[in-house]
């Protein structure tokens, strides 16, 4: 199996990564090294010869690359996103052909966005028409990650009435088979972060394409695939957060102000520990979410929206807090590890935008409020599925892709099992925080029950969605808590409660001791030890 250190080494040195960013050059040698290391196999399900049998493993692999360079994994990982629909809806021939190509290192892209209406999947204007010799596409997709580099594209195109759920279909395009003149690339966009990544576009003019799945099922297939890809995006945030925490941990350990290292001062210690707690909380949510793909497949419409929304949001908070600790070194591009911090901060800002933005995911969660409220009241829990979702590091059962449904029938077992988890705790401080989480969750779910379903939810629904996400994160922390990871998860739970009470405008929780975690994180940053409870050591050995 691939390991973090192997991926770390594949990426080369920080100076080169900074140079690629400065010149907006594609991380070609980094992607080639990941190909050589065998990462593409983890994008292909085992039935077609790949190693995608455990989404926790893929999440970890992405994190291992992202903690070195987020741009590289955004570029490389697009092949996973671009082919996710093929495994769900493709014919045996299509899946075999795509699997063979991906295993051979061929990049793929997922062409959804169009100029002028990015997030609106129902109203695309790229059109597919059927003729005697098959389907033809006409129209443009932009901005699309990998649009120029990819040989394979899955393309969403209109085949029926605009704005209707069954008016779009998916197509598979192999550029190498297209007739000249029927397509052309759209130039690369200049972006704020991920500057070297191939964010470009493609325009078709009667280009041939293969229907992927039945006509009219395009949006449904995309929404089901997004339940996988959105969850995996958590790995990108975890990597960026880890990178930021390590850079800042090293700085506060070595920086001496008035004859004392910063880490020996109360304020930097506390900020560092709080950030480590938030990152540990994000990790708990992302891991449970990724494992839910196998254990709680039918609940992924909820879990994916939560993970895609909350993990980048918590990571953005971590980066903003660490920015204050790092000061000028978070801003300058040519000092302190080649300006790595400002690069990761810019790169990471795309994660809350692509593959469904935070408001899009909160809206998707709000659509499911009535069912979530009912299932919470009924304490509906898929016990065996939940056990598998929280059994970190254990090889999960095979994913039944047919169980990915547009709306979860059971609500969200991770949150709905909170009463039982809290009842089983005994340690006083942790129990007090857990009870507080339980009380707040009951309140949030009660308010969710009062929200009327609407195509355009009110602002209050977005805020309740944000609160419910944090309840999920807190529940994930409690599910994963052990005496061994207590030093992290105690602060993690406290940080989540602090955030939750802020979102709900309630009084903040009692403080917890930040010192043990601050020391652990500063030490891990200096020695290369794991910096999160379920993280890996860093082969750079700083």
């Amino acid at each position, binding site marked *: 199996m691939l390991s973090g250190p192997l991926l770390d080494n594949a990426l080369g040195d920080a100076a080169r990564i900074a140079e690629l960013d400065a010149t907006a050059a594609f991380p070609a040698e980094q992607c080639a090294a990941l190909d050589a290391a065998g990462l593409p196999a983890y994008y292909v399900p085992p039935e077609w010869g790949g190693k995608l049998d455990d989404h926790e493993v893929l999440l970890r692999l992405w994190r291992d690359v992202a903690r070195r360079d987020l741009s590289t994994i955004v570029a490389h990982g697009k092949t996973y996103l671009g082919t996710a629909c093929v495994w769900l809806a493709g014919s045996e021939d299509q899946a075999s052909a795509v699997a063979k190509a991906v295993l051979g290192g061929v990049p793929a892209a997922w062409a959804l*966005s169009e100029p*002028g*209406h*990015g*997030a*609106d999947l*129902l*109203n695309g204007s790229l059109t597919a028409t059927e003729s005697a010799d098959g389907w033809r596409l006409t129209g443009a997709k932009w*901005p699309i990650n990998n649009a120029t580099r990819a040989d394979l594209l899955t393309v969403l195109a209109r085949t029926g009435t605009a704005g209707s759920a069954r008016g779009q279909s998916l197509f598979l395009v192999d550029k190498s088979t297209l007739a000249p003149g029927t397509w052309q690339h759209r130039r690369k*966009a*200049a*972006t*704020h*972060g991920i500057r070297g990544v191939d964010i470009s576009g493609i325009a078709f003019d009667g280009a041939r394409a293969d229907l992927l799945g039945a006509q009219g099922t395009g949006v449904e297939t995309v929404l089901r695939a997004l339940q996988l890809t959105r969850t995996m995006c958590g790995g990108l945030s975890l990597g960026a957060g880890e990178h930021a925490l390590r850079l800042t941990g090293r700085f*506060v350990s070595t*920086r001496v*102000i*008035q*004859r*004392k290292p*910063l880490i020996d*001062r*109360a*304020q*930097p210690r506390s900020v560092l520990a709080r950030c480590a707690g938030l990152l540990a909380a994000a990790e708990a949510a992302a891991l449970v979410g990724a494992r839910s793909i196998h254990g709680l497949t039918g609940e992924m419409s909820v879990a994916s929206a939560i993970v895609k929304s909350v993990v980048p949001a918590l990571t*953005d908070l971590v980066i*903003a807090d660490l*920015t*204050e*600790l*790092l*000061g*000028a*070194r*978070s*801003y*300058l*591009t*040519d*000092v302190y590890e080649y*300006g790595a911090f*400002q*690069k990761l*901060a*810019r790169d990471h*800002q*795309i994660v809350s*935008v*692509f593959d469904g*933005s*935070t*408001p899009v995911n*909160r*809206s998707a969660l709000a659509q499911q409020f009535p069912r979530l409220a009912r299932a919470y009241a009924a304490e509906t829990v898929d016990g065996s599925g939940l056990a598998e979702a929280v059994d970190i590091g254990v090889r999960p059962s095979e994913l039944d892709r047919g169980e990915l449904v547009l709306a979860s029938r059971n609500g969200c077992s991770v949150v709905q099992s909170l009463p039982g988890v809290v009842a089983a705790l005994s340690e006083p401080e942790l129990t007090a925080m857990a009870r507080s989480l339980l009380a707040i969750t009951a309140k949030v779910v009660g308010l969710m029950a009062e929200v009327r379903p609407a*195509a*355009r*939810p*009110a*602002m209050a629904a*977005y805020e309740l969605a944000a609160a419910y996400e944090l309840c999920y994160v807190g529940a994930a922390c409690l599910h994963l808590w052990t005496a061994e990871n207590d030093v992290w998860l105690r602060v993690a739970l406290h940080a989540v409660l602090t955030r939750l009470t802020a979102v709900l405008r309630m009084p903040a929780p009692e403080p917890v001791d930040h010192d043990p975690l601050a020391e652990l994180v500063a030490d891990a940053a200096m020695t290369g030890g794991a910096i999160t409870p379920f993280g890996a050591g860093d082969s750079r050995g700083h």
Partner: protein
Amino acid sequence: MDIDELLADPRAADNPMGFDAVLAADERQEMLADGERLLDEHGFNAEFVPTRLGGRLDRVDRVAAALRALWRRDPCLGLGYGFSSFISGMNIWTAGDEEQQRNAAKLLLDNGKIAAAFHELDHGNDFAHAGFAARATDDGWLLSGRKEVVTNLRRADALVLFARTSSAAGSRGHSQFLVETADLPGESVRHLSRLHSSGMRGVQLGRAEFTDCPVPRHALLGDPGQGMEIALRAYQVTRAVFPAISVGPLDTALRLATEFALERKLYGGAVSDIPYVRATLARAYADLLAIDAFSAVAVRALHLLPEEMGIYAPAAKYLTSRVVLDAFEDLRSVLGAQAYLREGKYGMFQKLHRDIAPATFATCHEQAGPQSAWAAILNLHPCKFASRQSVPSANGRIQPT
């Protein structure tokens, strides 16, 4: 001078001060040359010079309004043309003798620039252990050490330098010097390559190594050992002014997001029909009004309640910088991918977001705080220094508290 009129329509394609030109200069990591020329032509620097010395600075809210208009169009001009010389000036009006003040005023009124060379990367705000030192000689001082992350260091006509002048412990070990760069012997000042940053990309952040650089006795600002005290007095003003300025970029960001919401169609309607978008825009506007009100009071308090500035200045600075950044973050979620593109109609958004990013660095730390980039770039120092201090009145004289 109406700055907005001078800067003209930001969307006009042929406006050398328009968004397209501002973005293009940022891409080249250059100051907007046409902008600097225009500001020179209209003698913008007079805003930083007290009226008794021939400038237009008679009340601080006036300079705040002028700088805000500049920051609303291009924070690089706002800092690299504006704020940087304003800060240097405040130190000079605070402690300079009559001749120093007259010379500095003339230099600024002639469109010159004065850089505040305070920062050293290895020491940050830890002034007490700063490495840059001045050694007294028979007829002046010899300066040695490094200054880094200094706005306009290389192109400034004069420098205000912060240097250790005594090895004794305590707050009186440093002094400030005002020197004209033309008077410095070239061989004793070695400019190092410019530093680059993720935001404020056009601003020229210089660094230089001084080796036994001779300066005359009369280069000293105030008395030996007064360096920290002068800086603290000047910061009372610059720290109070910055929140009022930071409204500028937020103003533009809010206009961009609103323009986008009205123009763009999503889910069969305008983006502005989506309740989330409406609420986010309204909240950002409320934030803007709140900062505007708070900062207006803080700036006027400089004149009216100077003895209370030790509270108002850091409070305004701490609260407003966080509110501004949070509002930017919320507006980013309205613009989506458009907030991430360095091109197109809304390309200004990401530039403003990058430019304003260091606003929180210099927030209130209880103890010797960590490195602060604003402290470096803007010389806005953490509130650990804030206490009962006198502030310069608008005529540049110190009013005891």
